[in-house]
């Protein structure tokens, strides 16, 4: 039972991530590699605020969201002028920057959370407290899953409503033909800033949930592998609609668990998992470039 709850919590977290990433990749048509960076920014913000300064869950998450919104400009400003491969490279730079900041902002002599040891570097932050909501401490996973599911549902509602709105319609128009959209008087720069900010905020929430659930955070949550896992979810599941990312999150959460039952030797299992991811992506790109449930294919 605990195992299933654990999986459900992971699924909730990655549904938020995939839905938010789909706003940028599927609706704006901008392939970003920096999404894990904002996920980690959310996680680290929560961890430090809760652990070091003793903030409650809601104010800490709110602060994490605001920080992610501001920092999302590092991705959306390049998107004003850059497209395609060049935009991917710019987001890769942001991703590398976030990772190296988290990895290097440490000093073994200074206490965690101080100016010279903000992130504790590669050792990560242990002992992140579970949230307390309305006086109830969610230390039991059975309680935490309720919070995670509620947040995931709320995020899904927000994404659903936004993408079905005229705002989402402009995003798709911009993705299809930016010049034509601008010619109709749409300030596409503003729409990009909004979409990337909203996506970054949502994934920061997911990062905070992850930090609160696992209780430990290290820079690997901002690694390129993590970004690629997130991208795989939306690409395998499908871009440009609501169900695609959810399918993708489900598959990429379930797949490693299913492989676990194959009873492979440990040394082989991890490598085989990566090989299977790679094969899956190649096959998807070849046979169904719009993903399993998607409507849009990357060009």
């Amino acid at each position, binding site marked *: 039972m605990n195992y299933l709850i654990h999986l459900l919590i992971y699924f909730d977290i990655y549904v938020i991530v995939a839905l938010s990433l789909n706003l940028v990749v599927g609706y704006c048509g901008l392939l970003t590699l920096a999404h894990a960076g904002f996920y980690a920014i959310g996680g680290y913000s929560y961890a430090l605020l809760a652990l070091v300064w003793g903030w409650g869950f809601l104010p800490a998450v709110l602060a994490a969201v605001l920080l992610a919104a501001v920092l999302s400009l590092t991705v959306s400003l390049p998107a004003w002028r850059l497209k395609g491969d060049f935009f991917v490279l710019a987001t890769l730079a942001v991703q590398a920057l976030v990772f190296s900041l988290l990895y290097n902002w440490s000093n073994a002599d200074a206490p965690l959370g101080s100016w010279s040891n903000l992130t504790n570097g590669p050792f990560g932050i242990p002992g992140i407290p579970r949230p307390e909501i309305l006086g109830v401490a969610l230390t039991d996973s059975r309680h935490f899953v309720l919070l995670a599911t509620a947040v995931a549902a709320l995020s899904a509602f927000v994404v659903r409503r936004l993408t079905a*709105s005229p705002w989402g*319609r402009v995003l798709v128009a911009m993705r*299809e033909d930016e010049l034509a959209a601008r*010619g109709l008087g749409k300030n596409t720069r503003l729409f990009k800033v909004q979409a990337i900010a909203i996506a970054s905020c949502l994934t920061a929430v997911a990062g905070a949930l992850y930090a609160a659930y696992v209780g430990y955070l290290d820079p690997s949550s901002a690694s390129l592998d993590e970004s690629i896992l997130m991208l795989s979810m939306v690409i395998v599941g499908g871009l440009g609609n609501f169900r695609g990312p959810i399918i993708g999150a489900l598959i990429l959460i379930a797949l490693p668990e299913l492989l676990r039952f194959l009873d492979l030797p440990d040394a082989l299992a991890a490598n085989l998992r990566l090989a299977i991811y790679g094969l899956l992506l190649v096959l998807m790109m070849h046979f169904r470039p719009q993903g399993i449930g998607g409507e849009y294919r990357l060009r």
Partner: protein
Amino acid sequence: MKIGAFCDTLPHGRVLLRAEGLKQAFGGQIILDGLDLELREGEVVLLRGENGSGKTTLLNILTGNLEPDAGAIHYHAHSTPRSYRFPRPWWRELNPFDHFTPEFVAREGVRRTWQEPRLFGAHTLRDNIAVAAPGHPGENPVLALFAPSRSARRETELGHKADAMLARLSLARRQDSSADKISLGQTKRVAIARAVVAGARILFLDEPLAGLDRQGIGDVLELLAFLVRGQGVTLVIVEHLFNQPHLHGLVTTDWLLKDGAIRRTDRKGRGDDSTRPHSLDPSRVSIRRPAWFGLLAGEDMEVVDELLPRGAMLTRIRRPAASKHLSKPVLEIRELVVSRGPRVVIGLDDRGDRVGFNLALYEGDISVLQAPNGWGKTTLLFALAGLQAISQGLVQLRCHPITSLPAWERAKLGMQFVMSDNHSFKGLRVDENIALAGYNNASPGVRALAGRTFSSLSGGEQRKVTLAAGLNSAVRPVVNILDEPFNAFDHSASLDAVKAIKSSRAPGTLLLVPSAV
């Protein structure tokens, strides 16, 4: 079609747009040289000029797509006029509300269309029109999230407006079909309608009739007439030479762009029968010839028409003597079926049965295949070129089957193609493009462009280069297949193109063009 008469009654009102001293040069070549112009409310302007005279450049500048080197533009369509002076000082760019870009110029009531319709393919037709509406509360994500009822009210209004517009375009029951599933003529009209819903007071149209068959041309003209008469939109139209006569009833003013400046002429006596374009005259419909046909056929040629399925027609032009020994087809197409996805594009008969498409091109023939939009001309060319899979049938070049050969083998055997889009190597220079085609004997018109990169050429110039490269790409050419070869050409370029086609060493030539009937 009565599009002529009403224009006379329109008063030419206040100035909507004024430009002073516009200058623009590309890489040392001066395109606009201190150009002045004035556009008044209710005018319908035909912007003319030779290939490379700067029509598209001027359109790009006036719509905010390109910043000129010097000059000033004043937009007066709204109660608060707005002026831009160039070159703009760098600190103006710091103000996020004062940029010279398409979206800011669009707020001054200026819209444009492109040669290709540029509809949003993922949207339905209704959404394509609704998305254009300005000031929609639902486009603010905060309002979309927290005040959906406000957005929904506006959305309902817009839906009605879009449906009414689509009904006017005879697309009443197609609101929910996706934009890439309607014909070219229809997409062009939806693109125009979209610009108007977006609040256009001044609409710039870049070749609105290009690539359309006769039905499509009539429909677009009707819509333009409605915009001028019913919506009070002021139009500036760039149109290809052969399509200009269609616009005669509508146009009030000519702008001739020459040597970087505009010469303006007001037309008189519009709507008068004597100036009614011949192509709109129903009594001449039976002639069934495109405007350039006379240039190609000449006096001493024999012309034979054959009707093909689904409204297409093949016209063979040949020397009278040639018909005596018709035995040698250079290109033979037998029972060809080509599908795109599940849809059969080539090979259906008039009843929609899958019978296969047949065509033979004989030695010495110049054949013109006229077909309505959506018939599959481009698909046919791609299938013959080996760029599109053939479902069934046989294609023979000088009696050798080529159906299973890849594109490059077909080209080596002597098939030469000129696509309707200028498929050339954009980053290379003109002489490099020509050299890649294996050709070193270019005409003076093309040689004059030699040092420039292909992407810096105007539409007409690109067409010249594509045609020159395409018609000379094989060592021993056997057939030329050209998709809309005269598109974007002015008069002298068309004459050159006809000369090039007639003097081609290939024994057979097939032109694919939209129906003129």
